[in-house]
């Protein structure tokens, strides 16, 4: 038994806002308090400390084929950032794309205990599972890319919606996925011929289909299957001025639950002269009107990043723009992918506009339950910079100082300078924990009620900013960056900001039911278009030992 005594508890799901409360833990779960603390129990004195559920990251690229290509691509990202092996803890390297063990440790040392891998092509999900097996402490889940799946597009185009639904269910179940990820629907398919899409009604070449039809079908299917997490959409025109128009269109058009990921990247306006400007306030207002739509921000952090996405044509464009090294990875019948390293400079006009756009989303979306803090790690910045963003949201003076560093022209059309909102700790607990769990549909995560998983982080406010951040950004200030204690599954894993020992992590997955005939219906097509045997495609039991099925419906 473990008792966290006298902490100020922030547990928004249970409406607890900074009240002094004891948290009792046994068997990896939060339990009812007893009259007195039994002998042999571990007691953590949290007097004057902030107690929150373990942090949750709804969207990060942490493992799998694309991430690993990013690691291999950038040795210069690793040389100066390393961690030595110590006792049973493993070594690692990497700044924007850390190795697997280091990823687990660094998240834990920030108080995070659950992370969702945001995009895995179904055919290479076995690889994602192998890497997650080497990423201790964290609980994880995998979103699988289905927005450009050719067998699925064939069915949607022909109006065979029952078969399409069965196929989605079969895919998720066979590869051990947790949710449906859609990336630039139709655009990635067109990229396989060097093209893209620019509007929701553009043609998906050779498929008699539009991006709109694909996304609408998938939203419907996710609803019908009762998936715990709605369709997770990376829309079209990412990164382009005017993407706010296409984003607005899909927010209005979505009939059903929809999660829009790293929305900052898809909320750029275009002024009369065709120049890029923030569309953050426009999009935030629309979000406020559509309670069925949630988002994570994908906030820019100034410094080095590695862009990696299934949006192949986007990475091609970034490569043309920057001249940096470029990987492209088209995946048969399913999706694409690309990687380009990038630096966001505080002196750059476009980087500043991107930063402003994200901040406007944070400050203008009224309901914190519909918004999640992310950096689309490592696309807009590395995950260990979340504490800087938290500080920016909580501390208006710091934010205003930060604003003064940006090129003034970046504020054309922006309302950010007029926004005085400061997030409370309660709201921070929502956007980093509670809302993330709700949007993901993980009922035992993101709160400290009886029966919840005992993932807890404890912070002493005087330790904020205590650790020198490795980002080397001289204006970096932080909050909630240095947990005094982190408990994962009831075990103490971090003390005084440093990982002590590993605890096992599990992978959540879904197994929605589907018509049994789907296998026979697709077998022949599969073997015609794929290059592996149909029966070798599903992720075998051997990889799913540390997984837990979350029930649909």
């Amino acid at each position: 038994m473990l008792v966290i005594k006298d902490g100020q508890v922030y547990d928004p799901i249970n409406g607890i806002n900074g009240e002094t409360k004891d948290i009792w833990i046994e068997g990896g779960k939060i339990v009812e308090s007893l009259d007195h603390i039994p002998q042999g129990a571990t007691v953590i004195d949290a007097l004057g400390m902030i107690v929150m559920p373990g942090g949750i990251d709804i969207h990060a690229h942490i493992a799998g084929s694309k991430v690993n290509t990013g690691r291999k691509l950038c040795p210069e990202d690793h040389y100066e950032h390393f961690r030595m092996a110590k006792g049973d803890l493993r070594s690692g390297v990497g700044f924007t794309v850390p190795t697997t063990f280091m990823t687990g440790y660094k998240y834990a040392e920030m108080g995070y205990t659950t992370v969702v891998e945001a995009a895995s092509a179904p055919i290479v999900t076995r690889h994602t599972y192998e890497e997650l097996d080497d990423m201790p402490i964290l609980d994880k889940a995998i979103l699988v890319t289905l927005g450009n799946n050719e067998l699925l597009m064939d069915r949607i185009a022909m109006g065979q919606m029952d078969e399409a639904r069965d196929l989605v269910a079969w895919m998720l179940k066979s590869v051990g996925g947790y949710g449906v990820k859609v990336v630039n629907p139709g655009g990635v398919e067109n990229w396989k011929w060097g093209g893209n899409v620019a509007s929701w009604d553009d043609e998906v070449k050779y498929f008699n289909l539009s991006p709109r039809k694909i996304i609408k079908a998938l939203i419907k299917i996710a609803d019908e299957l009762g998936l715990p997490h709605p369709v997770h959409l990376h829309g079209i025109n990412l990164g382009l001025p005017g993407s706010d128009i296409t984003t607005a269109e899909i927010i209005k058009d979505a009939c059903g639950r929809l999660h829009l990921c790293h929305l900052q990247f898809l909320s750029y306006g275009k002024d009369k002269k065709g120049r890029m400007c923030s569309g953050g306030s426009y999009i935030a207002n629309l979000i406020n009107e559509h309670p069925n739509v949630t988002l994570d921000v994908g906030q820019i952090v100034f410094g080095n990043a590695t862009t990696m996405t299934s949006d192949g044509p986007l990475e091609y464009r970034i490569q043309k723009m920057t001249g940096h090294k470029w990987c492209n990875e088209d995946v048969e019948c399913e999706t694409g992918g690309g990687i380009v390293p990038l630096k966001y400079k505080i002196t750059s006009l476009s980087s500043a506009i991107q930063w402003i756009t994200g901040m406007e989303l944070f400050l203008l979306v009224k309901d914190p339950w519909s918004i999640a803090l992310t950096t689309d790690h490592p696309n807009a910045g590395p995950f260990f910079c979340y504490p800087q963003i938290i500080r920016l949201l909580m501390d208006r003076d710091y934010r205003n100082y930060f604003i003064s560093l940006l090129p003034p022209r970046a504020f054309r059309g922006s309302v950010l300078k007029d926004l005085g909102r400061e997030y409370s700790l309660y709201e921070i607990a929502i956007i980093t924990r509670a809302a993330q769990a709700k949007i993901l549909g993980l009922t035992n995560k993101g709160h400290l009620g009886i029966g919840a998983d005992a993932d807890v982080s404890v912070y002493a406010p005087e330790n904020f900013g205590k650790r020198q951040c490795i980002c080397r950004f001289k204006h970096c200030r932080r909050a909630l960056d240095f947990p005094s204690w982190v408990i994962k599954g009831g075990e103490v894993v971090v003390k005084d900001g440093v990982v002590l020992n590993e605890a096992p992590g599990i992978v959540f997955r879904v197994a929605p039911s589907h018509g049994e005939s789907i296998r026979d219906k697709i077998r022949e097509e599969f073997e015609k278009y794929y290059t592996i045997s149909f029966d070798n495609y599903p992720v075998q039991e051997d990889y799913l030992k540390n997984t837990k099925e979350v029930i649909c419906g």
Partner: protein
Amino acid sequence: MLTKAKDVVCTFCGCLCDDIILTLDENRIVKVERACANGMGLFKNYNPDLLSPKIRGKGASWEKAIKEASEILSSAKYPLIYGLSSTSSEAQRVSVKLAEALGASIDSTSSVCHGPTGLAMQFVGEPTCTLGEIKNRADLLIFWGCNPIVSHSRHFARYSVMPSGRFVQDGRESRKVVVVDVRLTQTARVADVFLQVKPGSDFELLVALKALVKGKSLDAVEVGGISIKVLEELVSDMKSCRYGVIFFGMGLTMTKGRDLNVRELFSLVKELNDHTKFSALPMRGHGNVTGADQVMSWLCGYPFAVNFSRGYPRYGPGEFSAVDLLCNKEIDALFVLASDPVAHFPSKAVDHIMEIPTIVIDPAESLSAKKATVYFPTAMYGVDCEGTAYRMDGVPLRLKAPVKGNRPSDEEVLEAIFEGVRRC
């Protein structure tokens, strides 16, 4: 009684054909269907009998051998773990753990095959795709410095030249095949166009092609023994195809220029993407050499040539790569996992192997195994033990164990040695 095993994965080469049918009689493979000659040899008459390890050529118990190996490794000042490419990624993961615990260097056979491809990728990136994209889309195939008919015998049939795909309905008829090589190989014989490049001129040829793609005119009649006119025709084909691909092999990576050749090739392919869709794919040799790159990347951050002497991974191709460490006589113990450096390394490197204690894990008693201080005869991945392997394009497959295993797997022996080292 005869039994059949279907959809078996063959680990002979990086193609990882996963449609093999085996017929077994009493735990012996008596019939192999669909495999190429190379794959046949892997499966047919494979003997899964338990063999005893050897210490200095003499039979020894497993316990003794593990103890001896652990002692050699833990008393070494600078051990090297080498090989990795013909075993499962599960075993590769343990070998990285072992290297970390020992403060050793660890290197895979990549450093003597497609290591330069990795270096090139780290400079310019790599526009690539999985093999199914080739099957479904490619209408122009260029094979450069590789001879798949001999080395990857089913590549043509399954992935590249022959199959019909979603957008390539007529198979071979719909595809143009170009071979660039220094001699008329078997692969070159079946090509539509064969460009015989002068040995050592690949780099010049690639630069010339890139210039032509960029629309520059060249003040030369020929480059690398090939007339400009022929090159212009090739460039015209490259720019006008729907989906092109260049497969390349050790003819580029292990000849003059090495990583510079591949850098130029990747840059050329990058350039071509301004005109049409184009990809490049290395023809990886060993069954799971791609897995070795993957595992080392996710655990060490670097694909090969890693050193752990400071307690964290450092990258040093040319410094921590096996041939260099051996030729410089830097290491004082060698751990060979699923490869045969004594048979394949330069004689100067082999000379040093002969002088230091070696530990070899291999299903077959290779030349390296015969010389080994301690030799462990283990199960063959994908025949009598399971695991994961990565195809040359990064697609991971589960390896079955159609034959009932009697010998321990590489992974099990590695784990035992890891424990042994910890106790030392």
